[in-house]
């Protein structure tokens, strides 16, 4: 069944507004997505009538909130098709999740001379935590390159996976190229050598169904705010058998069993990795967002976004002197481009005054820009509430902008 985009747009209060007296065209969903009314209402009602710290009090509100929080965990488990809620850890976001794994896994399993394998198209959040780990341990960061279409050069994987590789950390979908990576093949090859794989799903979960058991990944991370939920909340999925063995990465309340000044024993999974008062309103907001997306259905979302992607690519390719970066055959509705001899910043500033919100710059993927020898691109990132009419407005705006600047 097709999507009723008009109906969907009416669920997002923010989209219906004017900026600089022009209708807002929001194409910066790769940075953050807008929130449907059901998420806003859920969080407002929580704060108005249910706020209370989870796992602490035995009073009515605390019990209620704990139930809601744990129901959110179950909802995330079901969304990812994880085997157990022990495998679902609430974090501050994808970045927080990756840092947690880089620390805990790194402390346990990475030593001097070992290797961590990432790819050339990673977001800085999936580069820097591993670099920091390598610096701490005297390990080496290895990189799977991509070709000029923005697809991983899979032949290189066989030589890059060595007896020294301790973990592979790879983005499921690229935030600056739009590429959906062949993650199953990477996982199969890594597992053949006994190497676990972390997938960064920050740009994937809002576009397609993710099944961690089908993927057979060992860690999967994503941020709530990129899937129509609140910011400051995110998820770390980890395979239970691995999480059991890992040391906690932060100490504090709730993650402990017994504390004395001599020693401390830790709580069971998943609480071992949730130190301090958690962002429970964020987690419950995320749960409402997942319900919203699920009610629309990923099959319909995928079909609609494929159509939108095809249309947008065709229109962008029709603009003289515009180069598209990222032409992978499997992709999300994220488009990176640059007009010849024009600075992306100039384009972004002018589009902004036309009411069109895009992102300009390196998109936290400086190595991707280095690959192409450029200092940045313009990125339009669309989700299911965007329309072909908005693509037309973008393309008209780009044409006018290029005329102004050349």
């Amino acid at each position, binding site marked *: 069944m097709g999507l009723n985009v008009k109906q969907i747009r009416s669920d997002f209060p923010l989209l219906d507004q004017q900026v600089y007296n022009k209708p807002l065209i929001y194409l910066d969903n790769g940075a953050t997505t807008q929130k449907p009314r059901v998420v806003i209402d859920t969080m407002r009602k929580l704060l108005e009538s249910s706020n209370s710290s989870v796992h602490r009090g035995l009073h009515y509100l605390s019990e209620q909130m704990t139930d809601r929080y744990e129901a959110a965990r179950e909802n995330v488990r079901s969304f990812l098709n994880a085997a157990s809620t022990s495998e679902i850890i609430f974090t501050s976001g994808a970045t927080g999740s990756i840092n947690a794994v880089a620390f805990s896994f790194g402390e346990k399993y990475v030593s001097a001379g070992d290797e961590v394998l990432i790819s050339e198209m990673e977001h800085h959040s999936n580069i820097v935590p591993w670099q920091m780990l390598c610096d701490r341990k005297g390990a080496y960061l290895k990189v799977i390159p991509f070709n000029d279409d923005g697809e991983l050069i899979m032949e290189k994987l066989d030589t890059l996976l060595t007896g020294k590789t301790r973990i592979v950390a790879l983005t499921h979908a690229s935030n600056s190229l739009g590429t959906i990576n062949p993650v199953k093949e990477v996982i199969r090859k890594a597992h053949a050598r006994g190497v676990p794989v972390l997938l960064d799903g920050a740009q994937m979960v809002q576009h397609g169904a993710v099944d961690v058991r089908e993927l057979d990944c060992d860690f999967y991370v994503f941020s709530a705010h990129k899937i129509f939920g609140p910011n400051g909340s995110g998820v770390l999925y980890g395979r239970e058998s691995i999480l059991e063995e890992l040391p906690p990465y932060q100490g504090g309340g709730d993650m402990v069993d017994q504390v004395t000044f001599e020693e401390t024993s830790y709580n069971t999974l998943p609480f071992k990795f949730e130190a301090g008062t958690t962002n429970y309103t964020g987690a419950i907001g995320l749960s409402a967002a997942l319900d919203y997306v699920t009610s629309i259905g990923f099959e319909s979302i995928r079909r609609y976004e494929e159509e939108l992607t095809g249309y947008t690519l065709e229109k962008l390719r029709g603009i003289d002197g515009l180069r598209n970066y990222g032409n992978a055959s499997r992709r999300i509705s994220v488009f990176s481009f640059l007009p010849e001899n024009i*600075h992306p910043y100039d384009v972004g*500033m*002018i589009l902004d*005054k*036309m009411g069109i919100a895009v992102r*300009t710059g390196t998109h936290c993927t400086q190595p991707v820009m280095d690959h192409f020898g450029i200092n*940045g691109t313009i990125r339009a990132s669309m989700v299911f509430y965007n329309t072909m009419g908005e693509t037309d407005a973008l393309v008209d705006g780009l044409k006018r902008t290029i005329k*102004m600047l050349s």
Partner: protein
Amino acid sequence: MSDFNEKQQDIVDEFSVFEDWLDRYNYLIELGNDLPAIDPRYRTSEYLINGCQSKVWLHADLVDGRLVFDADSDAIIVKGIVALLVKLMNNRTPEEILDNDLFFIDGIGLRQNLSPTRSNGLLAMVKKMRLYAMAYQAREKQNKES
């Protein structure tokens, strides 16, 4: 009103005729295109100003007690803003540069319409110009004393 402030007011007046933001940008683009490219000797990391998504280079000489700026940017709208600043600040004594408030930035709506990071870029430019003025002022003073 001092000559410096008259020039600032002129800029504000020039911009006030534009009804539309795109017209303002068109004007900045024109100004940017008219500003000669910086001497290649100064288009280096040494003269680069940080705090901007785009690159800005700035150099200043003191000629007969007045500052002469040479500046550039790789983004044309930013170069237009650079040109505005250069137009105002060129051939000024260090005292003129240091003692006057820059009200034209607010007056033409550049501050509130640029996001903090962008605005920082603009403010970083002004700061750098003032640093040059201070340095030359100190040097002049030293020369007089010795």
